[in-house]
């Protein structure tokens, strides 16, 4: 099966929004390669005609009456935010200088 290179880990870290350090890249690449070698054994299973599963008890869509219920108060929600202003979440700029 495939293995994970240091470059792969750097790419995956970017996709995952993790600003990993060079030291972490070195360490994770080795460890993830080991883990991947171990988990790749799922490939040995003969499951061509086997359906995937995700719940012990088969459930169909769960529906409820479409009724208005109270939400959390705005201030209670904003109280947990790292930065809030004018009753809103404050976020850093989204576009770069040259955009």
């Amino acid at each position: 099966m495939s293995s994970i290179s240091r470059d792969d880990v750097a790419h995956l870290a970017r996709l995952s929004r993790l600003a990993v350090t060079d030291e972490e890249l070195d360490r994770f690449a080795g460890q993830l390669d080991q883990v991947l070698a171990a988990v790749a054994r799922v490939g040995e299973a003969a499951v061509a005609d086997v359906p995937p599963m995700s719940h012990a008890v088969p459930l169909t869509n769960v529906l409820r009456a479409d009724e208005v219920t109270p939400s959390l108060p705005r201030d209670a929600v904003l109280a947990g935010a790292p930065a809030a202003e004018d009753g809103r979440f404050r976020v850093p700029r989204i576009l770069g200088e040259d955009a």
Partner: protein
Amino acid sequence: MTDLTRIDVAELGRLLTAGEVSAVEVTRAHLDRIAAEDGRLGAYLHVEDDAAVTAATAVDEARARGDELRPLAGVPVALKDLVVTKDVPTTSGSKILEGWLPPYGATIATRLADAGTVLLGKTNMDEFAMGSSTENSAYGVTRNPWDLDRVPGGSSGGSSAAVAGHLAPWAIGTDTGGSIRQPAAVTGLVGHKPTYGSVSRYGLIAFSSSLDQAGPMARTVLDAALMHEVIGGHDHCDSTSIDAPLSGLVDAARAGASGDLRGLRVGVVRELGGDGHTDGYEPGVLARTREAVEVLAGLGAEVVEVSCPSFDLALPAYYLIAPSEASSNLARYEGVRFGLRAGDDGSHDLDDVMALTREQGFGPEVKRRIILGTYALSSGYYDAYYGQAQKVRTLITREFTAAFTDVDVLVSPTTPTVAFPIGTRVDDPIAMYAADLCTLPASLAGLPAISVPSGLSDGLPVGFQVMAPALADDRCYRVAAALEAAQDAARGHRLLDELPTPAGAA
């Protein structure tokens, strides 16, 4: 006066109801013990102190007024720190949630409060429940009361240390791949993972949503059943919650303790420590498991060996599914709506701030799993990894189903070894993952499974696992209670009574 921290929940409930002790007395006894012992154990991340006394006072006043109270009103409880508690700090063992005061509470926290129980505090855990030793907590290690140089298991290791060390009469744990059962096993406790969907996940900080279940960690099987009945049952806030009544769990624990298992068929799983599958298992663990099976046979159970070859693939399947779901669940920590924000100095845009926040807020195991999960879900790899793992899950479930046509319960060791020394596996993911070998099959199939003490090996507790079909949690309690009663009677006391001086004078 009797030490109130040594009394089981069932008995505490009786004493409180009879007015022989007050809720304040019971709560203070536990808070005093936490103050004296938790410096060494590190079981708690947050202690409620005055708030707990206030809650206990309210119970005592209600009782004095003659209000009708629930049978467990006034019993203290500890919650693993991934149970969201309104206005009480909740971190999931992560720096990224340091200082967060949730604006709402989990269904199980609300149900415990409605039953009149008193919240003592929040217990330490591996960050986001990823680990088997509690060493992955961002807030320090927790120590095993049986030997302070060893881990208390994980990820619910704060809960196991608190209950085994008598810093709480019982506690909530959560189990994704074994995180209730394995810490219970290595600290001499009873821990039950309910059928998936039997206990609400609303307000539990998500790790792997198709596997996560909360459940009881207690000193007796009866106490575990009492807690399961308080927290379990349908919840409209959790769409995976099963809309069916819980089936007589406390009754099953009481019936089991009477010691009659005639007519019960027990299957010993070969792939979990049986012939040809003993690599990595300690001889002492296998010996205690054999003895436990002999006890069940002595109580009238019919014992057969059962083979489930796909169980060998449970570990690789789990370590694809859980990281995949985690990589998605943990995307919510973006430094905007709650928790930590790093690098917001005007020079970084939102993307950078997210990456810096997550880099600073997550520990190494969480990062490893997010990266692995992102890989397994990547275009071109999805079918080979996540898709294949979900199919292996079906194979494992089919083998359980086939086995349960011949037997009523399946049994195995809970974990291959006794508690391991702190520091020995923390930088070796593969060695750490092996602790979950026996607990993963029931997790992947969503089945109920209990760990009950089965004696000591080298002076450290060994756990015995009983697995049952979906929604047959009562069988776990019945068989575990029978084993517990027989072994307690044979040794003349409880296993926990052998704990070297409470919390160990190191």
